[in-house]
C-alpha cells in the first residue's frame, strides 16, 4: 500500500489506526502452490469464523478507520457468504479487494460481486504458459480458467490487476508474462518474487532465483517498462525483488502494528499474515474487540516502538527507516524474533542470507521435488 503522507494519530499516542484490514476468510484452496504464505499446519485450524462474526469484524475495523479491505485466503471464493460480506463492506465504505486464484469464479459471480459493491479483483497466475502454470499450481485446468476469468473481470469494468509470483522456475518468462498482461489489457501487473515464509520458506532452495537470473529479469522488466512508457500505456508494472539480495532489510508492514491488521480464518488477529509462525500469543476476535486487540493486546504491542531492539539495531541510525526489518524473517533465520533481520549486512546472522544466495547459484531441484501445499502435507507438519 502506498502511504504518501504522515499517518494520523489514533486513539493512543503514537499508535495510528489500522488502515488496512486483511480478511483471510479460509485456508481452503483448490490449488497447491509450493510458495503459499499460509501456515504449514493450516490443516489443523479450528472452525472458520461465521458470517456474523466476519460482519462484526468488518464493522469494528471500519469504525477504527480501516479503509482498505482485502478478502483473501486460501481461496476466498469457497466461502458461500462472500456476496454478503462484499455488500456489507461496501455499505460500510471500505474499498474492497478480492485476491483470488480465479478457480471457482464464473462470469455470473464476477458480475454479482460487482453489483454487491466489490471494487477490485486480483487474479493470480503461476506462469505465462499452461504447462508451467498448471505444474506450479498443482491443477491441470487452472490456466485456461484464469485467462477466462481475467477477461471476465475486465469486461465487468473492474480495474484489472494481475499477480504473478516469481521464482527460479518462471523468472525466465518475464517478457512473456508482461506481454500476456498487455494482451489481457491489465491495468496493474504485480511481479512478486516469492517471499520466504510459510510453504515458501520450506521450499526456499527450490524457489529462490540466482543472482544472475534476477539481474536478467530486472533488465527485461526495465526494457519493457521503457517500451510501455514510450507507447503511452497506462499499464503499471510492479516488480518486487527478493529481499535476500538486499543489504538492508525492508520496512516490513511499515512497522509492526502500524497500518496492517490481518484476521486469520479462525479469528486469530495478526500484525501480518505470516506472524502466526512466531511464538507469540496473538488475540482472537472471538474473545476481544478489534479495538482492544489493536491498541492494548500484548501481541500487537510486542514490537511497537524500538525499546525491544537489541544491537545492532538499537544504536543504528536507520532504525526509524526499516524498524529492524521483518520479525518473522528474524525468527525463521535466527530462532529469535528480536534479532535484526539477517538481510541487513550489519546483522551477525547475515551469513545465513549469504548461504542462501550461494545455494541459489547451485540449486538443481526440479519443480517435482518441492513440497506442495495441500492438507496431506500440512498434516505431516503438525504430526511431526
Amino acid at each position: 500500500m502506498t502511504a504518501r503522507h504522515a499517518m494520523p494519530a489514533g486513539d493512543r499516542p503514537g499508535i495510528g489506526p489500522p488502515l488496512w484490514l486483511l480478511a483471510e476468510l479460509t485456508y481452503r484452496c483448490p490449488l497447491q502452490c509450493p510458495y503459499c504464505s499460509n501456515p504449514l499446519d493450516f490443516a489443523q485450524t479450528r472452525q472458520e469464523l461465521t458470517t456474523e462474526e466476519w460482519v462484526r469484524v468488518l464493522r469494528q475495523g471500519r469504525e477504527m478507520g480501516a479503509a482498505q479491505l482485502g478478502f483473501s485466503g486460501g481461496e476466498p471464493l469457497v466461502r458461500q457468504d462472500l456476496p454478503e460480506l462484499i455488500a456489507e463492506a461496501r455499505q460500510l465504505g471500505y474499498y474492497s479487494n478480492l485476491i483470488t486464484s480465479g478457480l471457482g469464479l464464473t462470469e455470473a459471480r464476477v458480475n454479482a460481486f460487482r453489483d454487491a459493491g466489490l471494487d477490485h479483483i486480483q487474479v493470480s497466475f503461476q506462469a505465462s504458459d499452461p504447462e508451467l502454470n498448471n505444474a506450479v499450481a498443482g491443477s491441470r485446468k487452472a490456466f485456461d480458467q484464469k485467462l477466462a476469468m481475467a477477461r471476465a473481470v475486465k469486461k465487468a469494468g473492474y480495474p484489472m490487476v494481475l499477480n504473478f509470483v516469481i521464482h527460479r522456475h518462471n523468472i525466465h518468462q518475464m517478457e512473456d508474462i508482461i506481454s500476456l498482461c498487455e494482451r489481457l489489457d491489465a491495468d496493474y501487473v504485480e511481479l512478486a518474487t516469492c517471499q520466504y515464509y510459510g510453504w515458501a520458506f520450506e521450499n526456499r532452495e527450490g524457489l529462490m532465483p540466482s543472482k544472475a537470473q534476477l539481474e536478467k529479469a530486472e533488465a527485461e522488466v526495465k526494457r519493457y517498462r521503457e517500451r510501455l512508457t514510450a507507447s503511452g500505456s497506462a499499464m503499471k508494472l510492479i516488480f518486487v525483488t527478493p529481499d535476500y539480495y538486499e543489504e538492508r532489510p525492508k520496512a516490513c508492514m511499515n512497522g509492526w502494528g502500524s497500518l496492517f491488521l490481518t484476521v486469520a480464518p479462525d479469528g486469530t488477529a495478526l500484525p501480518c499474515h505470516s506472524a502466526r509462525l512466531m511464538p507469540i500469543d496473538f488475540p482472537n476476535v472471538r474473545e476481544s474487540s478489534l479495538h482492544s486487540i489493536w491498541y492494548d493486546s500484548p501481541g500487537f504491542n510486542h514490537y511497537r516502538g524500538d525499546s525491544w531492539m537489541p544491537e545492532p539495531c538499537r544504536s543504528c541510525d536507520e532504525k526509524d527507516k526499516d524498524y529492524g526489518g521483518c520479525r518473522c524473517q528474524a525468527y525463521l533465520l535466527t530462532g529469535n524474533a528480536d534479532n535484526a533481520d539477517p538481510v541487513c549486512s550489519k546483522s551477525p546472522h547475515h551469513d545465513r542470507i549469504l548461504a542462501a544466495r550461494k545455494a541459489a547459484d547451485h540449486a538443481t531441484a526440479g519443480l517435482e521435488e518441492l513440497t506442495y501445499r495441500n492438507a496431506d502435507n500440512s498434516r505431516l507438519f503438525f504430526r511431526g
Partner: protein
Amino acid sequence: MTELLEQIPRLRPGFRFQWEPAQNAHVLLYPEGMVRLNDSAGAVLKEVDGQRNVADIVATLEQQFPDAGSLEGDVSEFLKDAEQQHWIVFS
C-alpha cells in the same frame, strides 16, 4: 491551456474518492492502495465528477475560495499531475 480548460476530467475506473473521518482527510482509494490528500488536492478532486470541464471546476473553486485569487494555474497543474499519476483521465 485553453484546450485543457475544455476537457472533462473523471476518476479512472477502480478509483474512489471519499472523506475518511479517522484520517481527517479526503483519500483516493484504488486497488490495494490509498493516497491521503492534502486540503487543496481534496478540494479539487471533490469537484471532479465526469460531467464538468476544467473551466467549470476552476470557476466553482474560485467561488468557494474568493480570497485565493485566480486558481486556473494551480488547478490545471494539479490535474495534469493527477493524470500523470493515472488517477484521472480526460475526455
